[in-house]
């Protein structure tokens, strides 16, 4: 179950990962790079199609089912649950970093693109900001979901 959860988390977080790779490969969006075009295309398809399904249903569902019960003899979380917790915290920090660099340097990012339509460029700028902000909020929601489910499992074990 954990492998499935991590794979789905990776798929869900792909735009954030690619945006951060693009940031690194383009010297902070100062250089033109194919990674920039790739991240725009990826965030486009995620924002319009894929992310809704992954973000609102699949990832929280799998995350909740990946929580292992508290070991009865020890008053602490199961290592598998802890690993998932730290992965989600990592995703939250990565999304925070992504949001910060995108909001700070979104004009630099957009200026390096080959697109020339004013409407498409304005839409790309808005979408990049929205996508990176959405990941911050959602990863925080998954952390609270994970803690809530783990606590519930803990309570049941104690009973």
């Amino acid at each position, binding site marked *: 179950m954990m492998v499935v959860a991590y794979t789905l988390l990776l798929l869900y977080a792909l735009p954030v990962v690619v945006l951060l790779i693009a940031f690194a490969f383009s010297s902070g969006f*100062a250089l033109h790079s194919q990674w920039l075009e790739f991240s725009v295309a990826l965030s486009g398809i995620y924002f319009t199609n894929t992310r809704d399904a992954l973000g609102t249903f699949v990832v929280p569902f799998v995350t909740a089912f990946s929580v292992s019960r508290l070991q009865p003899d020890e008053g602490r979380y199961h290592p598998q649950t802890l690993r998932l917790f730290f992965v989600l915290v990592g995703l939250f920090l990565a999304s925070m970093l992504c949001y910060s660099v995108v909001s700070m340097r979104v*004009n630099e990012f*957009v200026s390096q693109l080959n697109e020339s339509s*004013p409407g498409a460029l304005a839409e790309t700028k808005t979408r990049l900001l929205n996508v990176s902000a959405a990941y911050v909020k959602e990863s925080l929601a998954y952390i609270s979901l994970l803690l809530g489910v783990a606590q519930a499992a803990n309570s049941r074990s104690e009973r």
Partner: protein
Amino acid sequence: MKQAIRTLATMIAAMAVTSAVSAQALRQIVFQVYDADSGEPLAASVSVDGNKIDGGRLTLAQDQESTIAIQVQTTAGASYRPRTFNVFLANFTGTQAIQKIYLAPRGAEGRVYSRGNVARATSYRGQDVDRAVALLERIYEESPSDLHGTQFGVYLRYNLAAALFGNCTEKFVDSCDAAKTMFEELLAEFDDRRAMFEAERIGKNNLTTSDFDGQTLINRYRRAKWDLSRGRYESARDAFQELLSEAEGDARVSAQLKVRVGQLKSDVDLAETRLQSARTAPP
């Protein structure tokens, strides 16, 4: 019968005179203004040397010098970026010269420009370099200045400088100095931003080979000739004198100008003679 023939001959003579006068009046520069984005004709106001001209047509006297140097100002309402530039036309001997001017619409507040916009604007260089200049100037002026230090900025400024130089050499617009300044700025940044220049395949030789000084000298000479023809003898004499001094001090000046020192001397003498005649002439 004789009377009828005489009347007919008089009419024909009158028509010939009218036709000759019309031919003289047709010696004009026509300024056609276009929208730089769409390429469509634009209703715009054109002023030459501070005076608004009707219908965008500047009519010249038949005995006008064939070298023309004028300051053109074009506006087309608040939604377009106005343009002001000097233009130098040499060997204008025909009846009509058409000067196309492109005005770029102002971008919406907060509009973002990209490499795609620069590439599109640059693609007009082969068609009409003035259109490329109008569009690239808009991108340069409406983009945040901190973008000028990115690869986008290098790409934009290099293409703008090249277009300004093209406008100077192909359409005789006085933009060689602006192009030279921009190329010099890029050259000064070259070592610090080598990766950006290399990514754009711009070498130091691309920034240094253009003959800006030669073109500027040619434009100065054309301006002086124009001043002479417009009765501004003193400024014409001073300009010829400066060029003569430079040509006497450095043989390359004469070669770049494509005018011999002897010709410059006679230009100075002519301007001086006309200045003295104007001073001694009764008011």
